[in-house]
């Protein structure tokens, strides 16, 4: 069944249908910890995407060489190697960003999103598909982190990407940049998104039911789609 999925879908599924943060609830630690500002969220997501893409590529290239018993250990070593590369490059090129993200860059090693994709996807698919999947998941991760960071930054410090967007008269909601704000914002965002999906689903179901009543013949086709 996997083979029938088009290459484009391998990329786009990570954006929404299987969005790592909102749908799969993976990679929560960095998603909550670094999203004090949109910039931090984007930087974190870029670093994660880099690690995810390259480890997916390598693992899917050598997937037939890795013995099943030690696969997790092998994945972890490969991931840790790329994380070390990212950490050293960031420390050299973007010292401020590296300081802001602190220990959360090395903690990419244990981001369940990355290990999860290797176990569920790269170890079973061709390199091209694995890379597309990784890029899609990375982009989805970035969408989640940037929006979460954006909301927290606007309400918590009146700025977006460092530019002031709310007037001085607006009292910044201090709670947003504190840990509690991260949990609350993400919880509300996830709930809101679920609500949207639910509403869409009920509307579709209603339309489907209406069409069934008109043309009983169509019912088989729609049944398969659903």
């Amino acid at each position, binding site marked *: 069944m996997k083979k029938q999925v088009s290459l484009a879908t391998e990329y786009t599924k990570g954006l929404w249908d299987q969005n790592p943060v909102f749908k799969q*609830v993976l990679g929560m630690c960095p998603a909550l910890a670094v999203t004090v500002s949109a910039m931090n969220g984007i930087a974190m997501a870029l670093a994660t995407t880099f690690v995810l893409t390259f480890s997916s590529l390598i693992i899917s290239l050598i997937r037939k060489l890795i013995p099943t018993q030690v696969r*997790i250990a092998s994945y972890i070593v490969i991931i840790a190697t790329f*994380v*070390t590369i990212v950490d050293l490059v960031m420390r050299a090129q973007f010292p401020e960003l590296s300081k802001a993200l602190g220990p959360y860059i*090395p903690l990419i*090693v244990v981001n369940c999103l990355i290990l999860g994709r290797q176990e569920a996807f790269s170890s079973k698919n061709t390199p091209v598909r694995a890379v597309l999947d990784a890029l899609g998941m990375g982009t989805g991760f970035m969408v989640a982190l940037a929006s979460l960071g954006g909301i927290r930054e606007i309400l918590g410090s009146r700025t977006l990407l460092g530019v002031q967007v709310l007037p001085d008269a607006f009292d910044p909601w201090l*709670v947003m940049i504190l840990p509690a704000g991260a949990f609350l914002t993400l*919880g509300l965002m*996830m709930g*809101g998104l679920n609500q949207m999906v639910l509403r869409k689903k009920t509307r579709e179901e209603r339309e489907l039911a209406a069409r069934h009543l008109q043309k009983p013949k169509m019912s088989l086709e729609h049944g398969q789609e659903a």
Partner: protein
Amino acid sequence: MELILIFISAAIVNNFVLAYFLGICPFIGVSNKLSSAFPMGLATTFVMVLTAIVTWLIYHLILVPYHVEYLQYVSFILVVASLVQFVEMFIKKVSQPLYRALGIFLPLITTNCAILGLALFMVLKDYTFVQGIFYGVGAGAGFTLAISLMAGIREELELANVPRAFQGAPITLIVAGLIALAFMGFAGMISV
């Protein structure tokens, strides 16, 4: 006295889950029931203390003398993974009841960021060996406290009428946010 402060700081004021967002996956995943959350906390604490001991020794006796500190992520994660494996085998051999209680949680602990986070924070804060052990115990106690609190609340939540869209992860996150707000009351009490 300083050791007690480190313990309290790691357990309550700078709680790993609620202030540093470490170990969120088990915090959300295994907090359905108190009867599984508490053993999970204990297993994590156990591994944390061992990790603190072993990674301190490796960092200060191998990595620093040979100037290969950049290998810390690779070596720490390998230590954690093999330690978890070892603990699992050891418990299985020594105590069957304990294995049945903790066994299923042990593999999950490898990817618990709180464990690796503990090792990294210990290096960052430059703790001595004994301080590191207390830090590990404190962090583990904090994790156990947070996950047990969460499980207790979620057991009650089962009876509550939560909107359909908020069931599962969203409401858990919001509850975590409220617990984090409560824990903010401890902020500034101790600064270590």
